[in-house]
């Protein structure tokens, strides 16, 4: 049985970064740079968000021999989740992002 733990502060900061322009597809590295997360923290968060259907993914075809690139944006459920977040928690998570992998 899958546990549905509350999302961590870092995961919420990723959701909020995606919610800034919900229709726009984002790259993983750009997201990591924006929310000041290391790749080792970002990808577990993205996996968890996708598992919870808060995030949808797509592939951008690679040019020539380059590999395809993964893209991310919020699903409708993700947008509703962000909209339902208490304002106080949202402010706190944006101002103090942490880098703990285990809380993804």
């Amino acid at each position, binding site marked *: 049985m899958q546990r549905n733990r509350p999302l961590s502060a870092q995961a919420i900061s990723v959701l909020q970064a995606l919610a800034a322009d919900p229709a726009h597809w984002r790259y993983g590295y750009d997201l990591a740079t924006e929310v000041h997360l290391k790749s080792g923290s970002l*990808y577990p968060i993205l996996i968890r968000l996708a598992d919870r259907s808060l995030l949808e993914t797509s592939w951008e075809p*690679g040019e020539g021999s380059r590999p395809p690139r993964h893209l991310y944006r919020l699903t409708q459920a993700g947008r509703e989740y962000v909209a339902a977040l208490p304002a106080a928690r949202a402010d706190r998570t944006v101002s103090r992002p942490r880098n703990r992998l285990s809380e993804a």
Partner: protein
Amino acid sequence: MPLFTPLVCLLCMGLAALRHPAAADPATRDDAPLLLLRWAAGLLPAQREEWGQAMLGELDHIAGRARRWRFATGCAGAVLLVPPRGRAAAALWAITAMAAAGAGLYAWTGVRYGLGTSDWVLAAIALVVAVGYILVVGVQVRRPGVVLPGLVGGLLVAVAWLVPNGFTFYGLIVTVPHLWAPLLQVIVVPLVTGVAGTLWSGSAVTGRRIARLAALSAGVGVFLYGTLAIAVIGAAGAQIDATWTISANVADRLATNAVFYLWFLPVTTAALGWAAAAATARVRPRLATVAASTTPSSAGSIAAPSGRALNGRWSSRLLLACTVVGALVILAGVFLKG
């Protein structure tokens, strides 16, 4: 018998170079962060494979050596911290428990018989080696199709090391086996493990991983059995030197047990199993093709062998021939002496 180890390693180096001639060409090399991330992505379970490709795709768009390193090491760390599940987790916990039990028994026996400082240094080295094995097993069990054949192979290797001594504690410590026993343990069974693993999985790469897991699981298992035997029997039975104290006798047995089962058994089994898997792929090229296709795709491709690579191939053949001749000379010497 330890003379076989360098020969076995040389044999494997030659076979490995024969299997990957293109690697000698610097034009086809990928940078270290890409290699690291490609390796880590291969550890993800099948249902997470897409995320490994996502990481590799992202790395391709990151410029700058330091940034690429930071990204690749972060992703690799995230992959390694994800605990294995199901059969893989069971295998990892079982081998960890065996290693911990072996280390605990070693320490208990050492305290009971009052080992000296140098003996404890050796025990510390054995502990570090055992921890290293657990880390390697933690990687191997994540690979698809490795756990079950690897553990079956490990059981086969362990049985081969225990049968010549009659499965008894006393026999394992005191009995000197016949000449056929080392040949079976060091050469025949590892070769069978490598070939069978390759044929079972249909891939030379997986066959090598199966041989590696078999070697480590057997080494840890037989080490535990041997340490238990020493803890039970102590200094009883034949002694190498009648003037030795009980403590020295037990210390010698513990050291021999650690060197043989934590170093000699895993190294020779993994190396010869690896060579056997490579040789099987040479005989059946389809197996090598299957293996290559399992590597995650990314920037960088396998190029045709260049002139430099072909020179490397001839060097490998020469190395291989020298190794085989050396092994035959040693084997002949052992037989004549026997």
